[in-house]
């Protein structure tokens, strides 16, 4: 063991700051451009991020952001339905898209010399989508089957959806990204076009290009294809309904015969990463690791899976990269013969003990080291680096916020962790959910 500690000391000093090469521009029409150079392979990832997600949807049309994402693969004024993906595939590339609460992003991964074609096509569908009522009808069937597959067929996903709806009392983070089923069934062509016309515009978009490219060449192409698209002057300020003061703890039981074993989850509202103010978020990253990161070394894992056989699974997690309030969550699957109320009490004991005790400096050092190393490992995946910038910039963070984040993480102290824990662990801001297969298990 001592041999390893010696090695550790060397490692920390030798982990020199190594970072991705990033260049940024802003086009005259307001579009932001981020270029990440990585010349290890002749490949490029072209991503276009719109600063609009499901939490920006008009009330009553939940799922429209995601539905529009699907419809974007139908035709434009120059491309037939499905032709976009066919052309990407015919160039040996792959493409897809994803929708979150805060953003909708489209991407292609392709040989670097095909970048121009990707840009030409992506720019064309920013303004010239041409969809028919028949395509809308068929694709609505697809998203309803997607909801079936992701949510209706999955008891855990249904439970999560209920708990989240209770955690957010006013913010649309409580509405599922894919949409409520009854509202999805009513989504029509006009809903999609209204959303598209308002939000899909260069002054609401971020272009991220990562891979074997030269920044100035990317800029020239971006000006040629995206730079000619006019800005949307009706683009609304992004001010979404916020949470009121939360004054009552919420408790729920979700019963579904498809649950294989009972478990308990608790989620608290938690501060998110904000521009120029990321310290609390960074401390919450440590808090999640300390309480429920690795089952072997975290407080919950050690107490409930090793010192006592109370649980077969424990976890704490922090989800903090959002435009508005994030979450801090616990989950615990009790061991055979342990009831949910016993398991929840044991979990609360661990949290109380943690709050009353000193944080072991060695654990802080270990987490700090892992976070620093994770920055080195991250360099191996260009697409993930591109996502890091695209997501952050669509959530109001700046390039500088992204780049100082590793340093902010390194600077976190045990006092920071304790302070943010005391702030977040207020049961009035929480939902505790039990997930069971029958009422008997909830006693």
């Amino acid at each position: 063991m001592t041999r390893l500690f010696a090695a550790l000391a060397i490692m920390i000093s030798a982990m020199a700051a190594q970072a991705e090469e990033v260049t940024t521009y802003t086009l005259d029409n307001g579009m932001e451009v981020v270029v990440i150079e990585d010349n290890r392979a002749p490949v490029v990832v072209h991503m276009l991020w719109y600063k609009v997600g499901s939490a920006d949807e008009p009330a009553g049309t939940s799922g429209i952001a995601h539905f529009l994402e699907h419809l974007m693969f139908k035709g434009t004024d120059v491309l037939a339905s499905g032709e976009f993906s066919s052309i990407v595939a015919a160039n040996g590339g792959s493409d897809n898209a994803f929708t979150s609460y805060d953003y909708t992003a489209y991407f292609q991964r392709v040989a670097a010399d095909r970048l121009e074609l990707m840009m030409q096509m992506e720019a064309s569908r920013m303004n010239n989508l041409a969809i028919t009522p028949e395509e809308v009808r068929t694709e609505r069937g697809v998203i309803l089957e997607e909801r079936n597959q992701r949510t209706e067929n999955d008891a855990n996903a249904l439970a999560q959806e209920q708990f989240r709806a209770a955690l957010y009392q006013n913010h649309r983070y409580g509405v599922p990204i894919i949409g409520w089923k009854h509202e999805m069934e009513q989504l029509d062509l006009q809903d999609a076009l209204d959303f598209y016309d308002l939000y899909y515009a260069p002054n609401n978009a971020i272009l991220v290009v990562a891979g074997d490219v030269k920044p100035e060449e990317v800029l020239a192409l971006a000006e040629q294809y995206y730079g000619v698209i006019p800005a949307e002057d009706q683009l609304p300020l992004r001010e979404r309904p916020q949470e009121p003061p939360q004054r009552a703890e919420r408790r729920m039981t979700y019963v579904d015969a498809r649950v294989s074993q009972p478990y308990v989850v608790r989620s608290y509202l938690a501060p998110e990463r904000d521009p120029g103010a990321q310290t609390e978020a960074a401390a919450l990253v440590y808090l999640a690791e300390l309480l429920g990161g690795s089952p072997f070394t975290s407080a919950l894992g050690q107490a409930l899976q090793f010192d006592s056989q109370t649980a077969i699974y424990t976890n704490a997690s922090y989800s903090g990269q959002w435009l508005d309030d994030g979450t801090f969550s616990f989950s615990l699957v009790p061991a055979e013969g342990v009831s949910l109320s016993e398991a929840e009490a044991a979990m609360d004991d661990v949290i109380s003990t943690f709050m009353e005790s000193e944080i072991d400096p060695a654990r802080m050092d270990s987490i700090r080291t892992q976070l620093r190393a994770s920055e080195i490992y991250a360099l191996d995946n260009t697409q993930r680096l591109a996502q890091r910038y695209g997501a952050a910039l669509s959530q109001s963070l700046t390039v500088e916020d992204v780049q100082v984040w590793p340093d902010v993480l390194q600077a976190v102290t045990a006092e920071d962790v304790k302070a943010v824990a005391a702030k977040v662990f207020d049961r009035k801001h929480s939902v505790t959910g039990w997930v069971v297969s029958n009422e008997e298990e909830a006693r």
Partner: protein
Amino acid sequence: MRRFLIAICLTVLATTARAEIDIQEVTSPGGINAWVVEEPAIPFIALELRFRGGASLDLPGKRGATNLMTALLEEGSGDMSAQEFQSTLEDLAASISFRASDDSISISARFLTENKEDVLALLRQALLEPRFDQEALDRVRAQVLSGIASDAKSPNAISSAVFNAAAYGDHPYGSAIDGTAETVNALTRQDMIDAHQNALAQGRIYASVVGDTTADAVSGLLDDLLGDLPQEGPPLPDDITYDLEGGVTVVDFDTPQSVALFGHRGMKREDEDFFAAVIVNRVLGAGGFESRLMTEVREKRGLTYGIRSYLVPRFHAEVMLGSVASSNETIAEAIEVTRNEWARMADEGMTAEELDAAKTYMTGEYPLRFDGNAEIAKILVGMQMIGLTPDYVINRNDLVEAVTLDDVNRVASELLQPENLHFVVVGQPVGLESTP
């Protein structure tokens, strides 16, 4: 002392992208082979090991032993408890994962260059001196049992279990590697020791190392890491002929969307028509949005979020499978369209345009797979396990290009047998019943 080093400089030339990857084949003084790619740009290393055999080596009545044993390799070894082992790894910011599957055990390690020796020492200790403490055995057993219980209520897991049992019976392919609650509850520490002795044999190792190291350095570390493992393992299971008849098996499960898994016999990886079969499969059902099944079932009719077909050439059997999920009310229609598309491709084949599009995609996409040290390391051991040589990465696209329209259409008519498709449907499908 036997030592040789072949350095093959490989340049993948594809239609749309060039990936340069220099695979060096090394053999240690003790005779252990590895493939190495030197990539000094980022100061870390990915190591990938595979042992042929895996859960197929479970002894009679001990289903689940290899899986549980493999999970216990990270749960204490040498003089370290599970927690000591893991906290040491965490302090080194390294990860080592151990995973059993039907025909192999996979070990993936990732570590910073400067921690190489310490991490490899930990890996060696886990492989050679696992403790199998009763406390760890019971704790991990409870986790495995939890997974088994969860699978029993998962439509996807149920469909696989029912299909495999019907197709392979008592062969190891016929049951899940986790075992059953009954077999797992009965496993003892001695079963772990036996499984360990059987599963990690030197003669069955495939290894690759990609990252900030050199071929010489890898050659020098293999014997220390792996040289004390048993030389040989027990015999591998026999091959089994897939002969499940066409038809439908409905498994009643109260859920709104039915999940269907379907298939018939497939093609061996070493068959000279294999690339023609890959192209047939790509155009029929593996082509993302471009495949005929996606076009007909999803794009035109909106019956599903996803449908795909895939070739599964395993070591002891080969099948062609597909899967689709659709509401209980519409799954029958989705299956009917699937059968029709299967028949249309078998009867009429594909067009020259479809063949060209498939080739362009496959040759263009291939170099993009070599994306990151761990990804490359996984590809390299996968190649070794099926008997490919390093120059395959150069020749592979030529093999794709060489396939003709006559080839694919002949293979389509032989490979695809719509009447022999067996569908296992989990849910409450309307208008579908099990065939006798």
